[in-house]
């Protein structure tokens, strides 16, 4: 396979995953805006920060008011991470790697682009927002479904999956890092309804409210939520789950190609950092520091993958 094709697949699925994550972040932000009238701007600011676009946003807008934030995250072409931008990028990637995709995956991606392009052609009104967000999530699920249902489990698939889980790991780590302070034991907030709303937001932004209720039997705690999102082996958006998937897919590539690279070592290290850990020790060492390390390590791993598999000349 061409290195450029591997890179196109990796980025195609990173972009698709990002569109879904951004939609979910907005949804969680909306929920908090509806339930708490004070401090709404602070919430929207944290949403933009989680999306990694605080500086870009401040170049365009002065205040983190809801309409600006939503438009910036959904439609702004100057924001390379806006849903519109990433869907356009994903579709460009797909066009570039079209010969590596099944007809189903290509058509699902092209459909996604056509639909999202039309949906986001005009500013989204508040009352339309829930439907628009649902469309975005559904479209990326359709591509994923086509991928699972029709693609050979070969290197093409592995690069697609690595892209998905790299993006997802980064996203989960950012969500936790931006909100880590609400997960810390703090005398003034413990047990208040404020905490509950914040916790729920975190769970909502990774679509894990219900899963967490099953897990915790309704008993929410800060540490419990952190444990769930970082160390749960079954939650498909937990850090350990993402790192395990990345490691597995890189492992398939190594055995297919008969070659080990630096990215394989980095991925092992990253996984080891989490296996056998418990959440108490992570809190003891400092949650913020731990998440910062994870984000940096994920980034380093990304660069290593790009180099080792020759994405660019």
């Amino acid at each position, binding site marked *: *396979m061409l*290195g450029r094709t591997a890179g196109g697949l990796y980025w195609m699925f990173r972009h698709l995953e990002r569109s879904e994550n951004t939609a979910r972040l907005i949804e969680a932000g909306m929920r908090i805006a509806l339930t708490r009238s004070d401090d709404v701007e602070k919430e929207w600011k944290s949403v933009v920060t989680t999306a990694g676009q605080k500086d870009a946003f401040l170049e365009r807008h002065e205040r983190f008011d809801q309409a600006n934030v939503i438009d910036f995250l959904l439609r702004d072409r100057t924001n390379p991470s806006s849903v519109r931008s990433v869907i356009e990028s994903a579709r460009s990637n797909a*066009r570039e790697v079209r*010969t590596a995709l099944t007809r189903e995956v290509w058509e699902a991606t092209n459909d996604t682009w056509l639909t999202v392009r039309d949906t986001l052609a005009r500013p989204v009104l508040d009352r339309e927002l829930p439907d628009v967000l649902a469309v975005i999530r559904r479209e990326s699920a359709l591509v994923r479904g086509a991928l699972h249902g029709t693609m050979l489990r070969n290197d093409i698939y592995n690069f697609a999956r690595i892209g998905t889980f790299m993006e997802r790991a980064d996203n989960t780590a950012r969500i936790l890092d931006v909100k880590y302070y609400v997960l810390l034991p703090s005398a003034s907030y413990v047990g208040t309804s404020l905490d509950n709303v914040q916790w729920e937001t975190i769970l909502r932004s990774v679509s894990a409210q219900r899963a967490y209720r099953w897990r915790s039997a309704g008993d929410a705690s800060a540490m419990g939520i952190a444990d769930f999102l970082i160390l749960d082996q079954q939650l498909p958006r937990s850090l350990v789950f993402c790192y395990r998937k990345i490691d597995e897919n890189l492992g398939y*590539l190594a055995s297919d190609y008969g070659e080990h690279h630096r990215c394989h070592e980095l991925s092992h290290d990253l996984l080891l950092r989490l296996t056998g850990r418990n959440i108490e020790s992570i809190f003891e060492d400092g949650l913020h520091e731990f998440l910062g390390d994870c984000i940096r390590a994920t980034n380093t791993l990304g660069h290593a993958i790009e180099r080792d*598999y020759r994405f660019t000349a």
Partner: protein
Amino acid sequence: MDVRPGYFDEMYGDGSALRAPYRQYEEWFAREDPRRLLKKSADAEALFRRTGITFNVYGSEEGDERLIPFDIVPRIIAAREWARLERGIEQRVRAINAFLHDIYHRQEILRAGRIPKEVIADNDAFLPEMIGFTPPGGVYTHIVGIDLVRTDDNDFYVLEDNARTPSGVSYMLENRETMLQMFPELFTRSRVRPVSEYPRDLRSSLAATAPVRTSGRPLVAVLTPGIHNSAYFEHAFLADQMGAELVEGHDLSVVDGRIAMRTTEGPEPIDVLYRRVDDDYLDPLTFNPSSLLGVPGVMDVYRSGGITIANAPGTGIADDKAVYSYMPEIIDFYTGEKPLLQNVPTWRCSEPDSLAYVLDHLSELVVKEVHGSGGYGMLVGPAASKREISRFTRKLKASPANYIAQPTLALSTVPILTRNGLAPRHVDLRPFALVSPNTIRITPGGLTRVAMKRGSLVVNSSQGGGTKDTWVMED
């Protein structure tokens, strides 16, 4: 349907009677509900949009992709008619390859005085880098598209030879695919010759010209300028159908005297490069130094026998519009035969007498740039405004050698389906010929382009033209 007076309609002739090749189709059509057909027509468009069979328009906003309009009424050619065209195309393609070999070697045709030396010497399409070099298998034009127009029951003219990188074949294939899906019943009642062999034939043609030292199955790659090129869909489509790699210039480099693509496992050498990049951009070391689309050093590898490039660099000298006017000479010189397909009478504006005639008759003529393509920069006299004519007069006077002129041909029409039923529209035909060392294969049919606007004679997709499925009937 009323035919357009003065023009030959391929379904209804002069309007007095249905022509034989369309008999079965017309029987079917007469029983169809026009509303169902219009709906099918809209379905086809949605299908094209959904599959991404689009082209990018130059000079419009980036990312602007358009569909080529598709008309569901097939263009039908009788077996006997096709047999004649096929022989004519084969003769022409043979002559073109002989001409190219000669022009880059002993130039006998110039020595014999059949073509003036300046036509070649002053021509940018002539590549000195190709002098004395014979491409692998002796094939210069692996793929040729011959543009034909019909003016009468018996009269076909060659409008243009496309010997560089002819495009459009993906539409030939997708149009048939679409018709098969939408109207399977048509193909059970009429015996239409298939076109689906094209990708396999293309692959085997290309593989047959692999460099001599290739061992095993040759690795074929399609070189595309990338996703912003207007024909990108076709590049990806052909690579996919042939099971070839789709590469861009920056995927390739010279490794140990060969051209290798950068794979996830390291460099892998390529044997045959089906390039959809113009000569000028092919190798920044040899041609346009600012090109980012090509591969630095590919010409050196090519000349030392490390790779096959299809079509060979420098084939443009054979489809240049100034050289076109000498095609009857070329065919006679290399085959000893009379041309089976007619050339359109052509005035070379480089010649003072011709220029004077052309300037006097601009409102009747079609004027084309010698190196132009895609319908850009041409004047259709009868349809042009006064202002356009005076603008072209200035252009012609400023650089006469840049232009040729031809009479406005009475292009045949074929009906298209409109909201008001069938309506005649002008068409041309681009059949595709594949050349390998021992054979020339011509896919039965080709791409029919149709001017969707009433009365228009310009069929180019860049100018709003559409396409039709082209049927060659079995005997």
